[in-house]
């Protein structure tokens, strides 16, 4: 699931909304202003209600279920057991192994995407011809169904599925004759394929977010620095990067949260979740909830994933906040 950068930007600019100035006049609401208010609420209500009903209610329900001993294979036997499910999850090595897999996949993919995304954004920004061509090509990985992309990588790398990559890798001596890169035992190569698939799919999105930030960097600054004798490299690090910092943080926020929720790619590469060598927390949640139908434990996993996401978001928002505050202070 991808979300545009726009998701943060207007919320931030909201604090400087000129509409706020009118607040003191609240008491003297004219007929028209009152109608405007009413219309505003009426227009927002359906969207707000739907969002509330389909996210707030289920997450509260998940919290409630996570405090129960509830297994759909044994209906009618649920009982309130307090935090026992959390104790079970947090004291199992499986949870921590899967957290580790998720963190490794997230950090490495997002780091590679940032570098490649920046290069792609610079190429889209500066290309002297063929901009439409590279933009169109880059949008194909963005738009393609994630499951399809994951299968393209799996069918290329898996020996069992007859991929062409094992042969290529063996001919250059990177893979043993008997090893299947996507077998249960091949943790390292499964990581590599998962990261490749993730990076291929989402680098264009990263690049588009960065491209929006790149458009803000004025050519005059670059020209001035050039006249002063700055090299291309110096101009990139001293002008482009600092000016793009907010755009970079927003792009990193969205990609990190997205990567942390990684499900489709890992599910497909691990043969529908059965190969656990790089199982992520979302796949663990799915398996507990829907394969083993353990609603109590599965809900505890869901709530813990939710808390991780909140934590990551809070860290970024704090970073973003201080960054914007610094800019305003100048």
């Amino acid at each position, binding site marked *: *699931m991808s979300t*545009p*950068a*726009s*998701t943060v*930007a*207007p*919320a931030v600019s*909201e604090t400087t909304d000129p509409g706020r100035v*009118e607040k003191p006049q609240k008491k003297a609401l004219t007929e028209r202003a009152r109608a405007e208010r009413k*219309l*505003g609420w009426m*227009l*927002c209500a*359906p*969207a707000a209600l*739907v*969002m509330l009903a389909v*996210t707030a*209610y*289920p997450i509260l*329900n*998940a919290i409630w*279920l996570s405090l129960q001993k509830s297994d759909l294979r044994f209906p009618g036997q649920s009982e309130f057991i307090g935090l026992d499910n959390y104790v079970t999850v947090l004291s199992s090595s499986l949870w921590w192994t899967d957290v580790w897999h998720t963190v490794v996949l997230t950090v490495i993919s997002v780091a590679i995407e940032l570098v490649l995304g920046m290069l*792609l954004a610079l*190429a889209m920004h500066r290309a*002297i*011809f063929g901009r439409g061509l590279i*933009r*169109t*090509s880059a*949008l*194909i*990985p*963005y*738009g*393609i*169904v994630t499951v*399809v*992309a994951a*299968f393209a990588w799996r*069918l290329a790398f898996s020996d*069992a599925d007859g991929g*062409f990559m094992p042969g290529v890798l063996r001919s250059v001596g990177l893979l043993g004759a008997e090893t299947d890169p996507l077998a249960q035992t091949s943790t390292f190569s499964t990581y590599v394929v998962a990261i490749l698939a993730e990076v*291929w799919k989402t680098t264009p999105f990263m690049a588009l977010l960065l*491209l*929006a*930030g790149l458009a803000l960097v004025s050519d005059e600054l670059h020209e001035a620095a050039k006249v002063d004798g700055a090299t291309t490299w110096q101009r990139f690090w001293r002008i482009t990067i600092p000016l793009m910092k907010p755009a970079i943080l927003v792009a990193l926020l969205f990609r990190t949260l997205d990567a*942390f*929720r990684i499900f489709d790619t890992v599910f497909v590469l691990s*043969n529908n979740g059965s190969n656990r060598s790089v199982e992520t927390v*979302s796949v663990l*949640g*799915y398996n507990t*909830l*829907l394969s083993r139908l353990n*609603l109590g434990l599965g809900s505890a996993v*869901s709530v813990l*994933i*939710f808390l991780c996401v909140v934590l990551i978001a809070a860290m970024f928002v704090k970073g973003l906040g201080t960054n914007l505050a610094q800019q305003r202070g100048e």
Partner: protein
Amino acid sequence: MSERTSKKVFSWTAVNTVIVIAALFPVLWILSLSLKSADTVTDGRLIPAKFSLDNYEGIFTGSGGDVFTKALFNSLGIAIIATLIAVTLAAMAAYAIARLNFPGKTVILTAALAIAMFPPISVVGPLYNLWRQLGLFDTWQGLIIPYMTFTLPLAIYTLSAFFREIPWELEQAAQVDGATPFQAFRKIIVPLAAPGVFTTAILVFIFAWNDFVFAISLTSTERAQTVPAAISSFTGASQFSAPTGSIAAAAVIVTIPIIIMVLIFQRRIVAGLTAGAVKG
């Protein structure tokens, strides 16, 4: 000077070629795989030794019955309905956010932002449970509801960014001429907003078309199973190998609408994804 120019042209040609190959290679690989004949599909060759359309014939008419055809119909129907509803609700909210003054605006935007970051897996369990009680499990509505919810934030933000660009004075002029706020919305803003609405619809459609988590959790049969879920449950010769040919052919078919949209609307998609970011 001309030598420098030709050097530049050469290096940009190289850069563009690398980007195009990197972006298209996996797609071309799956296309090549789908065109292999049944006996050569797992031969590990990059280019088919023998071209055949057997795999396509197989998924549309073959032994698997009409699993794929039904999934394709479900995918299209569910994605289109979810897009229509999400865009309608979002357009109403975005209009209010971009144009009207009312308390609670920030609450809506913050809630939308929170939902944009929300992990879908966290609501899958309760929804599965609830949908079974309400009879929504394995139905179109059962998928349409989560899809429209999870695309509303994206739609609201993208649309309100577009709506802010619309010339405000025209609406005021209409109101001076006696139109009510609602008439001004319907007759002046809607036509001006159409391009932004269209762009948003493309992004929402791509999300719904793409989803996998909800599709495999909230459906179980061909009644509502969408293509990504159907592909992942295609059965192969053994537990450990995938029915490569059918998967590849199905993969190519679901990719075609995306490629068509990207080819026709690439400018709009880029504008939609970066809308508002520039203002930040």
